[in-house]
């Protein structure tokens, strides 16, 4: 197969859907670079309370103090120039409840991405963020009538301070890592959701994060609290146009599932190849609660993302299901963190990665079960598929299980799509790209089924598109 050379062309993947941008007049622009003044500017625009500005500034100092984690992570992080990045850009309008009222460029952006259509078809509510702030935010009356709150983070902070403050920064402290500190300093946008006890939200709530501006940093902050016995599925999608310069996306997502609650958090990211995607996601599961992260990472230059669950209550369950596709020039550094902090807690990690051309995928897992607990279970499976000889995968599982009253299982596999397989499929009339797509889809098929139907179709299309681009 001479795809190694052809794969170099893959950076030009036809991200037909996401690769466009509009020249937008931003009313608020914090300029380039990050100082205390940047934070004051953001706080001023938002008209925030003092405590939150102090929180931001404390986080900013932590960010400055922490070194880049290049001692364990990719050296490529050094390519981020924090002085060139623009930290806050917005049109200055409050999010609209109706698409009619959304400014034209933003409305057209989301129409091209199919958001209003998806909303009509199968969503209970949508928030659409354009650069730093939401342009649109709406929840169906039937859902809000049940007491469900679905707003952006600033509105959550302003209107629901008692719930917001109780949990904000508690699951992921600012100092968790350099990028959670950065997010805590300059966060803007993201969702705040509260689901009252016993309310089972039937249809998913969705957020869409769109980067439009060049050399921009998007730092949304999401906090979801699902109260006792309640259930929620939340989906997020993200895209950005293809720029020559680097763009930074660094989100923090905190989930809280109270007793018997269930949260399913689904991500389908399709970043362009200039995006550094450095995201911290963690959930806190109380007694008998369940948190599932279903994560699909396509695109970006470097993604570092290890969704986690802290199982704090007895019989709590945590799950991470992830698909990562690293094309030429991309590095998907993903994994899972499972912290068992109560008896009879169960965690499950299933990760599948695909590396194409010189693409690289890394799995980092952490499973922690302390000695004093009883009856905990973990299952970890990570499978890697390599498409070309130059493709690369690494696995760093760190399973610390103390005590002997637990059941853990770990399986890992690496397989390669062989030339003989491709030849065989081509002999049946499939093009090389179709053959590879078929293999890749076969490889991830069982995980794709975990996504809601509307997303799994989109996923399959995205994978096909990636493969088309990668084999030229």
């Amino acid at each position, binding site marked *: 197969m001479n795809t190694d050379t052809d794969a170099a062309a893959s950076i030009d993947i036809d991200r037909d859907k996401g690769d466009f941008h509009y020249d937008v007049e931003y009313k608020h622009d914090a300029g380039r670079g990050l100082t205390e003044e940047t934070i004051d500017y953001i706080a001023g625009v938002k008209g925030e309370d003092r405590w939150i500005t102090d929180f931001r500034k404390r986080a900013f100092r932590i960010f400055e103090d922490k070194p880049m984690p290049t001692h364990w992570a990719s050296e490529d992080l050094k390519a981020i120039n924090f002085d060139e990045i623009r930290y806050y850009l917005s049109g200055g309008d409050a999010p609209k409840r109706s698409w009619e009222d959304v400014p034209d460029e933003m409305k057209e952006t989301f129409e091209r991405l199919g958001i209003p259509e998806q909303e009509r078809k199968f969503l209970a509510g949508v928030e659409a963020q354009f650069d730093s702030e939401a342009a649109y935010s709406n929840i169906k009356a039937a859902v809000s009538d049940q007491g469900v709150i679905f707003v952006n983070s600033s509105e959550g902070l302003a209107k629901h301070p008692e719930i917001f403050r109780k949990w904000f920064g508690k699951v992921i402290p600012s100092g968790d890592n350099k990028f959670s500190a950065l997010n805590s300093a300059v966060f803007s946008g993201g969702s705040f959701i509260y689901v009252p006890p016993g309310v089972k939200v039937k249809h998913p709530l969705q957020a869409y994060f769109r980067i439009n501006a060049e050399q921009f940093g998007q730092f949304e902050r999401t906090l979801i609290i699902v109260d006792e016995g309640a259930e929620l599925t939340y989906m997020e999608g993200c895209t950005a146009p293809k720029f020559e310069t680097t763009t930074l996306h660094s989100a923090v997502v905190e989930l809280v599932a109270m007793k018997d609650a269930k949260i399913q958090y689904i991500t389908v990211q399709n970043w362009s190849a200039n995006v550094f995607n450095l995201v911290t996601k963690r959930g806190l599961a109380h007694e008998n609660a369940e948190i599932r992260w279903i994560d699909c990472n396509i695109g970006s230059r470097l993604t570092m993302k290890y969704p986690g669950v802290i199982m704090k209550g007895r019989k709590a369950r945590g799950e991470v299901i992830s698909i990562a596709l690293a094309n030429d020039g991309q590095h998907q550094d993903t994994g899972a963190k499972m912290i068992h902090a109560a008896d009879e807690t169960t965690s499950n990690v299933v990760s599948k990665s695909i590396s194409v051309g010189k693409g690289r995928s890394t799995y980092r897992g952490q499973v922690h079960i302390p000695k004093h607990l009883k009856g905990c279970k973990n299952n970890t499976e990570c499978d890697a598929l390599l498409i070309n000889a130059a493709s690369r995968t690494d696995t760093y599982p760190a399973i610390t299980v103390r005590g002997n009253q637990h059941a853990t299982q770990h399986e890992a596999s690496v397989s390669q799509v062989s030339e003989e397989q491709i030849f065989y499929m081509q002999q049946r*009339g499939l093009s090389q790209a179709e053959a590879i797509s078929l293999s890749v889809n*076969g*490889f991830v098929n069982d995980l794709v089924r975990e996504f809601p139907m509307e997303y799994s179709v989109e996923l399959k299309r995205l994978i096909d598109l990636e493969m088309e681009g990668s084999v030229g």
Partner: protein
Amino acid sequence: MSSIEIKDLHASVDGNEILRGLTLTVPKGEVHAIMGPNGSGKSTLAKVMAGHEDYQVSSGEVLLDGKNLLEMNVDARARAGLFLAFQYPAEIPGVSNANFLRAALQARLPEGEEIDAVAFYKQMYDRMDELGIDRKFTGRSVNEGFSGGEKKRNEILQMTMLEPKYAVLDETDSGLDIDALKVVAEGVNAMRSPERGFLVITHYQRLLDYIVPDHVHVLSGGRIIRSGDKGLALELEEKGYDWVKEEQLATT
């Protein structure tokens, strides 16, 4: 024109010439058998026809109904009507038999046209029944964990579904039990038509009792050293290849 024509074909792998001036024509409507000692180049011929990258063609031609196959890539050759039943079929984990067949048929349709799923399944089940393949094989990954005989039957299933103009069967009989051999032979015979040509590679004259060839060729040292009717296969069975090789030496 309506034939596969191989003219003075030279091909090598890693610098070793395996095919050394092979000439052979299989017209539509005919079944030609190729026999020959181990390592004589039979599978090499099949793979060169199909376009495998490991083999370099230094000279010669392969024409399918007049079209130069050697200029086409592997999948274009397949879509032009060439089918190869592999001596050692590859396993494709994760891809179900049904999905694979469907994708292969879909690849033959013009852009924008979708396969009729109901008709597809009906046809597939009919063919599987004829070939004695259990229907649960539709959901299994292509060839993965199949027994040797199951793989060979699966090759024939694919052939009957894809309805090629020319089929090269590389030792499809090897590894088949007697009953399976009959079933597979019936499958091939049912496909014989004035519109289709077959090149059947085998070591055993027994297969040719079931699939009766119009011509038999002996491949040795990378070229056809003798051709005859089905009687030649019987003679080979009796006397072995040395006999032909010696005759060949005597005449050259």
